[in-house]
């Protein structure tokens, strides 16, 4: 769907040096959006057509509010496109394609564990809200650079959800010092001691992960070791965002073990962790 998103709020998130922004758009995209999906936003610095940048910017949907016709996009200013987007003011109208992609799936029962690295936390908020509204138990594992980043990237909003949370930072300024995989590993060990057989009363956990590729690979390997289903959100440079140009392919393994390509924009961005081939391309 191509639609106009009216900017109803556009503000800095947290500390200036984190360059994070929260953009709330009002429009029809909110009616069908699912957690894990994304929109592409045309970034223009004025009402006049500009071709630099030429491509729309894909941004994951962080909050979905169909009753208010609003979606929230959280992003980091990283290059020319997001620099121009950051200039959009309340009352401006942005051209939006989407919602696009497949979205996370929700387990029918048990616990949903969210594992985020850095700004990979953003699309997981909509998923947490959705899972909680369906009565699932949700737990968060989130790793980031430092306390300033975590607080800027929405820690307070997560605290309001009142879910069990394990934080880790690279410099140890908040939570445990180290990578997000460490608390995840301990938690997995607690629900599934390495030498135990599956039992009827075992907690059924599913994992949804978003973050840097290396982190998602490690999380996937951990989950496979503990036989826990995992979905990951992949990222790749996109052209058309509808599956036509084949710019954003990722490499997966099919059932027969053959390497195949899938389109991150159309077949993803959410894939089952075990089907993703992390270190090879074909």
């Amino acid at each position: 769907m191509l639609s106009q998103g009216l900017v109803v709020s556009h503000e800095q998130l947290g500390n200036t040096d984190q360059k994070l922004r929260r953009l709330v758009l009002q429009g029809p995209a909110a009616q069908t959006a699912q957690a894990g999906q994304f929109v592409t936003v045309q970034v223009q610095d004025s009402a006049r057509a500009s071709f630099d940048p030429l491509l729309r910017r894909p941004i994951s949907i962080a909050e979905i509010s169909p009753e208010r016709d609003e979606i929230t996009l959280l992003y980091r200013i990283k290059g020319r496109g997001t620099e121009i987007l950051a200039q959009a003011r309340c009352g401006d109208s942005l051209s939006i394609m989407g919602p696009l992609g497949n979205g996370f799936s929700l387990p029918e029962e048990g616990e949903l564990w969210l594992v985020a690295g850095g700004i990979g936390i953003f699309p997981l908020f909509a998923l947490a809200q959705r899972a909680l509204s369906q009565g699932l138990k949700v737990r968060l594992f989130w790793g980031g650079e430092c306390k300033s980043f975590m607080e800027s990237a929405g820690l307070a909003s997560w605290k309001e959800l009142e879910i069990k949370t394990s934080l880790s930072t690279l410099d140890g300024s908040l939570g445990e010092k180290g990578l997000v995989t460490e608390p995840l590993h301990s938690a997995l060990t607690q629900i599934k001691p390495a030498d135990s057989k599956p039992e009827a009363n075992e907690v059924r956990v599913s994992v949804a992960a978003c973050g840097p590729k290396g982190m998602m690979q490690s999380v996937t390997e951990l989950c496979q070791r503990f036989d826990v289903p995992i979905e990951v959100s992949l990222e790749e440079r996109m052209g058309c965002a509808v599956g036509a140009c084949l710019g954003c392919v990722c490499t997966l393994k099919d059932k027969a073990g053959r390497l195949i390509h899938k389109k991150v924009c159309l077949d993803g961005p959410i894939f089952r962790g075990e089907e993703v081939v992390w270190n090879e391309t074909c």
Partner: protein
Amino acid sequence: MKPVDLTTQLGGITLRNPIITSSGTYGFGEEYLAYCPLEALGGITLKGITPLPRLGNPVPRLAETPAGLLNAVGLENPGLEEFLKSYLPKLSKIPTAVIANISGFSLDDYACMARALKKGSGITALEVNISCPNVKHGGMHFGTDPKSAQEVMAAVKAETDLPIIAKLSPNVTDIVEMARAVQRGGADVLSLINTLLGMSIDLNSQRPVLANTFGGLSGPAIRPVAVRMVWQVAEAVDLPIIGMGGITSWQDAVEFLLAGATAVSIGTGNFYNPQAPLDVVEGIRNYCEQRGYSSVQELVGLAHRG
């Protein structure tokens, strides 16, 4: 006032209007359905196919440049057999002209695909890609050597009863020489231009952005080059031209028609605005109405008049 006649004759086929979408940017016709009804278009050109399936190049395959896009997809496609089995049956239901695009690495490659794609197969015309810049020893060799280009067209012509369209590469010294060569080989229509070979280097990694190092440049940045080549070929060769390269608006499309293109094709412009083809059709209609033209074909080549 009578409505403007937008119908367009192209190598023996009649298009509803002169707006086509370009190969490699429009998938196999289903991808943009939520944005652009196909019955509004003159035609669509399918993703290029090769005799055998191809996985294409590694990522990154795209690099954005000022007003442009570099791509090095490398002809990823399901191959001829899978195309015939899974894609072709759906295509006859598409309510517009469907142009298949074929690429190969030898004359036999081109010939075997032409043999499989004939009238009644759901395909309206065959575009012969002799200009893909992203595949080693691929199409572009045929597109930069006049003798090879002529041979490819003759090989295709001998095997199919469909109109054949030669897609020309701009990566040549003399585009007119190439156009003449494919005309001798039997091309019914010319389409130009394919992408311009380019590259981009990342200042952080100090490496090429594209995994393939080089890619084909498309988008508004290349439009003046494309208009110039359409002009030159229109002056010299008596074949209808599908003009393309950086079209995003009706103004761009009219420029190509005035330069001598009979039809125009929109590629990367779809990424910028997935409704660009609809806007272009309406814009051309309005332009003709306001200027008092009864048919869009009156615009073709007007800029050449003395």
